């Protein structure tokens, strides 16, 4: 009896650990068979590039997930960062360096404010970051009275043309390549590596997990819970801001609300990532794989000329499938 059960459990175990990977491979196989150009190196690079924003934002969300929070404002922070960067270069002509540093600082500060409301005011994480999302959206629209910021834009009140431009150094973040690998992909991979090392190989990462898994125990063991929770949200803000810089550079402008459409996909990617390799926790690798799964799907569907409105169905079905594979085991 024992051995029989063992076999079936092992199969589930496999599915649990490798379910997501399996779905990704199946997706890739399917598209490679039906689409000639799918496996071209250039298209693979393309897929990676197309998921870079979702990947980065889902890494930001991963940080908040580790401390058992959920940063719904990450996408809004990204959009906000792109607007600020553009404002710095195009309107205020302050050069690349401040245009990169200030949005990142703002991202970190917004993360801190989130943490303040969650920790000090004791508002639930979902609500606090949801409110922050409204707020940031509002502010970034107000900031520019609803218009995008771009090179040579005319200034309001007939003040002529915007003096500055998005610098090449900045645009390189979104459009450049290094050894024919797009810079956004490189940035995503570096951030993923950073998050991976941070979470798995530094004590701070372990503290994050401790807090997320049993906050009370962590507190009683003397971990400064508030400090690290704040840190987690700040890091989330940091990564989200980086995502925003890449987003702004890819678009070549500071678009209002540009981050919003990436929220749901990023949350989904981070959640799918939970169980990759059976880790059972929010983690960097999983989030990136989750993002890749969705990017691959979308890419293939566009190539197959699938009507956009049906893409959501496919997205939903595959999501459910991946999740079923990975979560079903837990029950047993």
């Amino acid at each position, binding site marked *: 009896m024992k051995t029989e059960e063992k076999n079936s459990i092992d199969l589930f175990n496999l599915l649990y650990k490798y379910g997501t990977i399996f779905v990704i491979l199946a997706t890739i196989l399917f598209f490679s068979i039906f689409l000639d150009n799918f496996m071209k190196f250039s298209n693979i690079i393309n897929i990676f590039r197309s998921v870079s924003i979702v990947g980065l934002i889902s890494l930001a969300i991963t940080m908040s997930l580790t401390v058992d929070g959920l940063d719904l404002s990450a996408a809004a922070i990204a959009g906000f960062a792109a607007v600020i960067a553009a404002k710095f270069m195009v309107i205020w002509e302050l050069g690349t360096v401040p245009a990169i540093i200030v949005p990142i600082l703002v991202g970190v500060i917004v993360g801190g404010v989130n943490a303040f409301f969650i920790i000090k005011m004791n508002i639930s994480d979902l609500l606090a970051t949801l409110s922050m999302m409204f707020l940031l959206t509002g502010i970034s629209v107000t900031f520019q009275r609803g218009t995008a910021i771009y090179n040579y834009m005319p200034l309001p009140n007939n003040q002529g043309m915007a003096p500055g431009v998005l610098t090449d150094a900045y645009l390189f973040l979104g459009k450049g390549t290094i050894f024919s690998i797009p810079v956004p992909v490189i940035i995503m991979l570096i951030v993923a590596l950073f998050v991976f090392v941070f979470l798995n190989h530094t004590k701070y990462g372990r503290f994050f997990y401790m807090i997320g898994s049993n906050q009370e125990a962590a507190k009683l063991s*003397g971990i400064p819970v508030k400090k690290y929770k704040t840190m987690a949200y700040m890091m989330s803000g940091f990564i989200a801001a980086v995502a925003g810089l890449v987003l702004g550079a890819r678009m070549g402008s500071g678009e209002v609300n540009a981050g919003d459409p990436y929220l749901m996909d990023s949350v989904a990617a981070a959640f799918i990532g939970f169980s990759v390799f059976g880790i059972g926790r929010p983690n960097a690798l999983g989030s990136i794989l989750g993002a890749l799964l969705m990017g691959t799907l979308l890419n293939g569907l566009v190539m197959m000329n699938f009507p956009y409105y049906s893409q959501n169905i496919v997205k939903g079905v595959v999501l459910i499938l991946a999740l079923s594979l990975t979560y079903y085991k837990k029950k047993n």
Partner: protein
Amino acid sequence: MLEMKNITKEFPGVKALDGVNFNVGDSEIHALVGANGAGKSTLMKVLAGVYNTFDGEILIDGKKVDISNPKQAKKEGIVIVYQEVDTALIPSLSVAENIMMDYMINDQQNTFMDWKYIKKKAKEEVEALDLDINVNKNVGELSLSEKQMVLIGRAVFLEAKYLILDEPTAPLSLEESKKLFEIVNKLREQGMSIIFISHRLDEVFKICEKVSVLRNGKFIGSYDLEEMTIDKVVEKMLGKKLENTFPKIDCQINGTIFEAVDLSGKNGIESVDFKVRSGEIVGLAGLVGAGKTELSKLLFGDSKVTAGKIKLHGQEIYNQNTHQAVVNGLALVPEERHTEGVLVNESIETNLTLVNLDHYCSSSFISRKKIKEASLKVIDDVGIKTPSEKQLVNNLSGGNQQKVSIGKWLLSDYEVYIFDEPTKGIDVGSKAEIYKLIGEIVSNGKGVIYASSEFEEILGLTDRVYVMYDGKIVKELKTSETDEEELLFYSTGGGSSEDRRKK
């Protein structure tokens, strides 16, 4: 020398500690006893820095110390192993990390994890405690007793000056307890003082030198155990003499009402045969991990039956889920009260009336009056110490929570009651009350299944015993014709055909 002077701690509506003076000498094992809700855990939490407001002062070696958070307590060399183990462990992290948690938090100089060192140290710790646990496993996958040992491992690693163990042996088997005592003695020899809280007074007498007694939040006194007897301690605890722990239950045992035939379950129970007769208390004995809990849950429909039958009054019943089991006339008091027995964030009355809410409804609509009446009755019958029936269960002491967990089944009749370690963490006075309740149940012609790893209880309370080992029933014994030795023999696999220990 550790001195707690004039400690007073109040919760809304409850004065948990009232001017308590408590001293512990160097290098001694000091027992702290008292009935449920006496304030033991609260006193220890004060010492461990859990509460930042209390009246009174704490002195170490004559010097006043300020303890208002856990970190300060640790700095003073005070380490606590809490009563509720789940509140102190990180389920999604490995055993190694859980054991080495304090090292990671306080001592680790590097930002980067020294995985090699942490695993090596944790392994040493586990081996020193003579445990068989893979340190890479997630703590969430461990059994309760293993979790307890992980916590003790963590405390031992810290090499504290004062180690507080709040009911550490409640989830442990005799053997594991013995192992623990050896460790505790070793630590004492190394100069550590241990404060030991337990409701098993025999243990207290076995390993402690001194005992302090609390009653109703007040300090009764400290005594040398050499000058005391169990009865005397009990008297100090309860403020009165305890006549006899196990009440004489005189009741007629009749025909079989409940039967399991060749029952196997998805949760590892194999080919179990047993029966319960009307008016009978049937014991399930066995060491920790023998499968008593699993069997109880299988009978109660919380796990899938893979083979065999369950019969009630000769008729086969199917318990597809726990609801059907209750409808069929079964009741279960589960082992882990905090997560399974009670809803800690709900009021006492809500908990008590949950299982047969129908009785307090008229056509699906709830009657608050009926609920209040019924709850007050149970609170009174079972003796739950609380200011009001609206109190959250979370604010009750451990023992009183357990009474809620039992009390909820007493408001209507069931055919068979399954008790899984119902007196774990219960003081002797309340134990006697619970035994009395069980006696009343069987004298109404019902059957009781009583699972316990405390052989003393099994011998004192039951009529017949099934001994479990490795998910199977290995022996059936008449209680009046057996003794502790024989129970231990069969529980450790003696006489079983394949004499192997489960890993």
